[in-house]
Structure formats: C-alpha cells, structure tokens
C-alpha cells in the first residue's frame, strides 16, 4: 500500500499534466508552431511531437491521479520535465523570446512558470520516485497487514 500523504502531491502533479496536456491537445497545429519556435527540430519532428506529447501528458496524468502504472508515470513525467527544461533553457540562451507553449498555443512568453514551477515539480517527482523505489518500514504502512510485533 502506498504511503498515503504521497498520494496528494502525486495526484496534484497528475492533475497538472492532465490539464496542460488537454490544453495542448485542443490545438495541435498551434502546439506544433510553439515547438518550431524553439528552433531545435525540423518541422516534421515538430508535427510528430505536437500530435503525440499532449496525449502522453494526459495518459501519465490519469495514471498518477488513479494510481495506475504509478512508477512508470513518475519516470515518464520526470523525463518530460527534464526534456522541457533543457529545451527552454537552450532557447533562452540563444536569445529567443518565445511563448513556452506550456499551457496551450497562444499563451504568453512569461518566464516564471517555466523557471520556477517546472524544476519544483521535477524535485517532487524525483522525491516520489526515490520513495517508491525505497519501500517504507512496515510500522508506518497504512492499511491492513500483520502486526509487526
């Protein structure tokens, strides 16, 4: 049984990914333009990512919310955040002032959501993943089970 308080940040992150994935899935053409603005990939790759990434975010968000394929969802969402932080940092270093595309096409190029929120979420995900891979002591497990004494 998962340690109960960990469900709260996991569910919150799941909800964030579900919501932001849905916003991107509404306008994949716009999202492809946002990816292109990073000037890292050819157009075909931008289109493929614009078609695929929103659904990956939605599915991982649902997985975290409903505690299904939990570890896998933690790994994928952490990888997505790392990839995004690298891409955004690269764009900023090259002097590109672009809309991050985080919340769907047409959102403004305000920087604080990316520079503060994404590393923050990544830190939480790494904490959750480490906790998941290192099982808790039987004394504090929630739910039914044999008495440790």
């Amino acid at each position, binding site marked *: 049984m998962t340690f109960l308080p960990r469900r709260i940040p996991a569910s919150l992150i799941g909800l964030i990914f579900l919501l932001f994935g849905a916003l991107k899935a*509404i*306008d994949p053409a716009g*999202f*492809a333009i946002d990816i292109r603005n990073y000037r890292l990939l050819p157009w075909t790759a931008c*289109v493929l990512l614009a078609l*695929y990434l929103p659904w990956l975010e939605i599915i991982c968000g649902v997985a975290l919310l409903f505690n299904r394929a939990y570890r*896998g969802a933690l790994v*994928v969402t952490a990888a997505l955040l790392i990839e995004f932080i690298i891409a955004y940092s690269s764009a900023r270093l090259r002097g590109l002032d672009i809309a991050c595309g985080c919340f769907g096409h047409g959102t403004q190029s305000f920087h604080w959501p990316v520079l503060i929120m994404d590393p923050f979420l990544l830190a939480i995900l790494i904490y959750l*993943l480490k906790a998941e891979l290192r099982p808790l002591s039987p004394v504090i497990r929630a739910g039914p089970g044999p008495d440790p004494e």
Partner: protein
Amino acid sequence: MSRALRQALSLLLLACLPALATALWHPRRPAWQSDEVTLSAATAWGSAVLWVDARPDADFARAHIPGAVPLNEDHWDDQLNALLDQWTAKRKIVVYCSSLSCQASHDVARRLRDEAAMPNVFVLQGGWEAWRKQHAP
C-alpha cells in the same frame, strides 16, 4: 526499477493510439508541410518567386527585396489587386516581414492561402533581416 521501465514503456505505447487518431481526424491537426522557407531555398526558385512585403508602407518605401510587391492588411484590397497583376498560379509567393519573430507575414500568408485559396504560399524564415544580412554591402 525494471517494473518502472516496463510501465513507462506501456504508457509510451498507449499514447500512440490517440496521437494517431489526432493525426487522422483532429480538425486542427497540423499540416505536414511547413509554410516557412529559407532564403536560400526561395532564392533557388529564381524568377518563379513573387516576393510579397507584409511590412508597413513606410518600411517598404525605405527598402525592400527587388521586385517585391507590398501587401499589408491596412490596404488589403487595393494592394491585393496590384499583386494579382503580377501573379500567376505557377508562381511561388514568398511573404516576408521584419524578422524572425514578426507575425504579419504569417497573417498575410494565412489569408492568401485560406481566403484567396492561392496555391504555393510560403513565409520567408528570418524575414527582411535575413535578406539584408545576406546582401549587406
């Protein structure tokens, strides 16, 4: 850890299905062909290119790509009329405005493509700055 990777792989594969559905049926699916063209590619088209300047009239009057015609949304109907005098369906229209981040060329290209249903409409990557850099004395 292997369980995490197996689950991750399942999620990665599961996302392919709705992505495929989006590619086939989403009303706002992206076009596989980009509307942007580099300066070198456009120049290689030679006289087939009709350059269209989407900048304000004052900027066009100061300097423009040789042979370009102005088309901005402040004077759309009059300038489109003049553009059509030089256009045929076989020519490739390349629209440019100020720079990498200028939106006007995309708006003008969108209207030529969607409203006027003109074929072969492109946007110059890098805009007027790209031309100036390559042709600086």
